[in-house]
């Protein structure tokens, strides 16, 4: 536990420039030392669990729905849009903003187009009830 304190006090010495990064580092180490899992491992855990959920959910799907599922889950994978918004929205200079905004355009095409085309496909089945 002493280590943790030391780390906390060390921040005093850091310059403003790199203090942000160091504080974050410190942060995750502090949590970790206090008995909890490190941030990265928690993210990894979330990943693994979500994979299990995905696998279990898709296990039995009729062939008819393969295409709508493909296109619907494709739309969901457009969730990168969230990342794109964060990348484009921040104050990060021209180059990063260009990349970010292109990402926003791409991702929103993927998301919106994906959901609409899925809905259109599924509408074909509706007569069947």
């Amino acid at each position, binding site marked *: 536990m002493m280590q943790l304190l030391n780390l906390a006090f060390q921040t005093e010495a850091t310059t403003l420039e790199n203090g942000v990064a160091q504080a974050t580092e410190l942060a995750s180490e502090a949590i970790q030392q206090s008995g909890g899992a490190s941030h990265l491992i928690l993210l990894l855990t979330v990943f693994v669990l979500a994979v299990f959920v995905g696998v279990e959910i898709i296990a039995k799907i009729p062939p008819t729905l393969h295409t709508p599922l493909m*296109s619907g889950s494709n739309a*969901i994978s457009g969730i*990168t849009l969230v990342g794109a918004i964060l*990348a484009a929205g921040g104050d990060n200079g021209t180059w990063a903003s260009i990349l970010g905004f292109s990402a926003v355009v791409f991702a929103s095409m993927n998301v919106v187009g994906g959901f609409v085309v899925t809905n259109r496909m599924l509408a*074909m089945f509706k007569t069947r009830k």
Partner: protein
Amino acid sequence: MSPDLIDLFYLLAAILFIIGLKGLTKPRTAVKGNLLGSLAMLIAVVATMLHQDVLSVGGLLIAMAVGSVVGVVLALKIEMTAMPQLVALFNGLGGGASVLVAGAYLAGKEFSGKVASGNSFADVLTATAASGLIGAITLSGSLVAFGKLQELKFIKDISFPGQKLLNLVLALASIGFGYLVATQPQHAELWFWLMTITSTALGILLVISIGGADMPVVIALLNSYSGLAASATGFVLNNNLLIIAGSLVGASGLILTRIMCDAMNRSLWAVLFGTMQGGGKALSADEVYTNVKSTSADEVAMMLEVAQTVLIVPGYGMAVAQAQHAVRDLTNQLLGKDINVLFGIHPVAGRMPGHMNVLLAEADIDYDRLKEMDEVNSMMDQIDVAIILGANDVVNPLARTDPDSPIAGMPIIDADKARTVIVIKRSLSPGFAGIANPLFSADNALMLFADGKQAIVDINKALQEG
């Protein structure tokens, strides 16, 4: 909005994604599932817009509006037959977005601050590299798949000696650059874009040599990749919604890929590394089509009059000809004459799974008449007349007999075992797999050369008059 609140909304969105995806797996809940997914996306986007780091809301709204409008227009204007390539296109865009987000992260201030601090953060950089690598493969691979499905002229099934070696080199180079991204933060941007180039090339080469008939599997796989890329982006940005949604898609795409491979009786390995090209050249058309007999609509109508059970096997040609409504009319007329009509639906007939179901449902054909391949094959001896409507590969007996054929091992509808087979297509040209079909010169087969819709309309007329 406070970060905690945003995260709670993210969690809500993640839950809705899961429920939505689950909905998509059952016919009755699929529409609702898709809507739930889009609701989740809306929640996620709105919550993100309220994040403290997001400054230029106006510009973002414009960018999203542009993307959305293009997406909606494409989604609504495209013909049903072109949907698979549209999915491939969207998928590629998602992968591209992952590359760009990772690139933007490396170009951004948070990153330069971290580099200046001199701390190691190889974990985040590894995720950045992964996001770029997978994203680039997804992007280029999907675009090639799009081109193949769209039958763009300049994209052919390219294969050349040493291709596998080149793939290997590109793969190793991409991984090597990725390693440099993770270990040399100072030059991370340079290595990152070099890596993007090599993995883009890799994506192109991997997909360009895959046979067109395997495209649906490839798209499902690339879909899985785009999910994994999104998930990697989540690790970069420390955002668990991206991680969850991405890995959901990654996992479900992988499972779907396996299910589809099983349906085509091919291993994923064989799909990816092309046993499709294997073996010597198959029989040429001239060798196969020695005994082709053609027929007319009137003759077909006469045969149908005396049949008890008629099987219709639709294929891609029915979709091209938009013959489904004519087929419905024919079905109703035959039923009125107490002739039983069944449809044999091959799992990969058409250009996307479920393609035939969609079209026949659109034409209001009773769902109970649609039989799956296995069921139809087990009752083939009771079929008096089998009408092959614009189908080719899915009834090609070579799949059973010629182990060197590109479709070897794919289960087919054994229409050749029906008493009489009527094949409706415009010519003797091959189907998607590009091979000749011995069924067309079988003793019990008659060709009706015509556009699919016209042929059915003609038969219908002949039946009414006869």
